């Protein structure tokens, strides 16, 4: 039908807005950068951006079910520490290590989901607690920063063969192998249904427990992919609660900038990726304009507020004031 595109636009307007915002900010950044559009600049930007983008994707999944995962940053850090022990040695050993890191992440996510579904605890407090546990384990694994990572793998993934940053290819692969199938699976559909109206989803016969379990498990897996990539960028593991905390909070901000409602039910991980890019680029932008880094939180805050305010415009049309509180 002819007006399909209207509905498509409506569904994805948050993601498009975030993408547009990113393009504008990134163009400003490149135009004012001394080196401009060159492979090293792009690759550095990509390496930083992709890490947050993947953690933001992880955050998107629980948020779509109207939940939240405050442990993504800590799983990210834990995966980093595990990788700095295991992703070493021969290519085969490193490959086994990669699988182990991802399995650890998925397990962390599964534990979150199991507690939320079977323990019937609220996601916010569950993941706050488990996140602290995961951080404790990271600290046990890496009391001081250090360790190593398979150098060949790290160089291959942080470089830019043929001028395209390898990290972007990794991100694309994650989108195509994890997000796209998930979004089109019954479970992904069910996650949106739960976020939109859990009662209606139940009445429609949606398997609510399994859906949430899958969403949190995938979130853990994605966070671990992020942590693995962090290891390739830093060549070491560090149990840093600061990194964990910052990534968790920035992932939530990226999700919101990307047009996903914290109330659940609507949004995409693609939007969150651009949300993450926007957040990252703002920091760099202030740098090229010679602003003091002190200004960075202020600007990030303003961008976030603007994005959230756009989402609240619908409240002006509500005619029963009781619905303002729903």
């Amino acid at each position, binding site marked *: 039908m002819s*007006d399909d595109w209207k509905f*498509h636009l409506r569904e994805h307007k948050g993601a498009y807005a975030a993408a547009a915002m990113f393009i504008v900010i990134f163009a400003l950044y490149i135009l004012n950068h001394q080196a401009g559009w060159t492979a090293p600049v792009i690759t550095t930007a990509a390496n930083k951006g992709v890490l947050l983008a993947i953690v933001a994707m992880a955050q998107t999944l629980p948020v779509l079910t109207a939940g939240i995962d405050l442990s993504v940053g800590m799983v990210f850090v834990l995966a980093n520490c595990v990788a700095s022990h295991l992703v070493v040695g021969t290519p085969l050993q490193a490959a086994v290590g990669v699988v182990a890191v991802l399995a650890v992440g998925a397990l962390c996510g599964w534990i979150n989901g199991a507690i939320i579904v079977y323990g019937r605890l609220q996601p916010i407090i569950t993941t706050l607690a488990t996140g602290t546990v995961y951080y404790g384990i990271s600290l046990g694994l890496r009391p001081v920063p250090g360790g190593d990572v398979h150098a060949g793998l790290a160089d291959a993934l942080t470089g830019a063969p043929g001028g395209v940053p390898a990290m972007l290819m990794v991100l694309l692969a994650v989108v195509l192998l994890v997000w796209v199938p998930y979004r089109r699976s*019954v479970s992904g*559909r069910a996650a949106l249904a739960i976020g939109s109206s859990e009662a209606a*989803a139940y009445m429609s*016969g949606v398997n609510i427990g399994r859906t949430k379990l899958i969403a949190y498990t995938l979130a853990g897996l994605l966070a671990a992919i992020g942590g693995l990539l962090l290891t390739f960028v830093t060549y070491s593991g560090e149990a840093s609660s600061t990194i964990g905390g910052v990534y968790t909070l920035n992932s939530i901000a990226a999700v919101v900038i990307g047009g996903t409602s914290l109330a659940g039910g609507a949004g995409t991980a693609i939007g969150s990726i651009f949300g993450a890019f926007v957040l990252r680029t703002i920091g760099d932008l202030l740098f090229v304009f010679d602003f003091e880094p002190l200004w960075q939180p202020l600007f990030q805050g303003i961008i976030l507020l603007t994005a959230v305010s756009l989402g609240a415009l619908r409240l002006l049309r509500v005619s029963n004031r009781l619905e303002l509180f729903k």
Partner: protein
Amino acid sequence: MEPILQLVDISKRYGGVRALERARFACAPGRIHALLGENGAGKSTLIKIMSGVVQPDEGRIVLEGRERRFAHPQDAVSAGIACIFQELSLMPDLSVADNICITNPPRRFGLIDRMAQRRIAEAALARAGAEDIHPLAPVGSLSLSRRQMVEIAKALSRNPKILILDEATSALTAADVQRVYTLLKRLRDEGMAIVYISHRMNEIAELADDCSVFRNGQHVATFEAGSQSDAQTVEMMIGRDIEHAFPPKPPAQAGLTARAPALETRGLSWQGRLHDIDLTARPGEIVGLGGLDGQGQREFFLALFGVLRGVGGELKLEGRPVQLRSPKQAKRDDYGIALVPEDRKTDGLMLPMSVLDNLSFAALDRLSRAGIVASGAELRAAEDMVKRLSIKAPDLSVPVGTLSGGNQQKVVIAKWLMNAPRIIPLNDPTRGIDVGTKQEIYALLRRLADEGAAVLLYSTDYAELIGCCDRVAVFFDGRIVRWLAGDELTERALVASALNLTTTEKAAA
């Protein structure tokens, strides 16, 4: 014809309240079976049991000769029973096609096949006679009537053998109602068994082949449509035991009508849900709001309390025209309104907070000086209320959620009496509370009226309206269709006018 579905001796209790008592029901393929009964007769519980939403305490469900148990809505769906609730099963953020296919989306290589899904959705919409709805539109963007059509399409896409409709037409526009009629008749001719709940007698006359009447959770009678007159049907529906004692009503005083009204509305309207409500309440009287559940009574109270935006018409308080914009404004002394809301657990109380906190919440302005709560005055006022309403609480500091339902309701009423309101709308204040407390509330309402307040009482219990109220406005479809007072105020008249059967009432009397 052989029944396809039989319910045998089904009983269900909610807490101490009996919803169904050894109820029986059977429906046959190729027939439209109407379920009749007044509020609380057990119809909703019955269809919830048929559709697997609640499980019966006792009794058997026999589907196509085999005994079945439905532990989840999904069990009933896969057994071929589709139920259309009022709006309950749609996810507003998802598209129409997503909603229609949510239970069992078409898959290819394990992933949802969007093209196939779209074809299914288009076919289902076409079958429901709503092909003008775009399958990609988010359900939240559709009007109520269109949403209901999506709900019907969703049920049809599962190819059910038994289709249950609970008040499915109450939200529909006239054009959609006609489509649904045509559709239901066609489905019946195709051999589907249809169970139909409606409070509109003309719909039942138009559609039903069989009728079953329920009363007080029990099956009263099943008969072929048309074999009983409307008056006989109403007679079967009424006859609730009047188990409450009501305080005596004051004789209709000539002086009362002379008093200036405390509240007067002229042509009050809102959003197509309230139409031209003219209502007057004088100090000293209890005005009842009758009618079936959900005919606009709740919205009317919300409009009086400043909750709704865009209310049309005129509202006068003690002769002054006013515009109310918020409960905060409505409760002020110069307006003097206090709304006792429908759901005490969500709108009335903060359950984990103490009895004292809850009692003083609405009146904190009066109990504080320069923004600081005068705790001495607060305690005295609260203790005063506890005594006045004989609220049974071990201590004022216990969480209000630990009190019994009846005492919780008393706290809700007491919290508003702290403001000494002059206009008191109460939304079904006795729902789910014990008989003793009910009687205390009836006596309290009469006392408040005698002290000069105008009391507005909405109740789903007709006996209560008859026993308590001086006059009753019967709501239907967002309008007042009838005023009943004095000797006219009978259960038969209430039921008949609630069903908007104005003429048969005289024939039956």
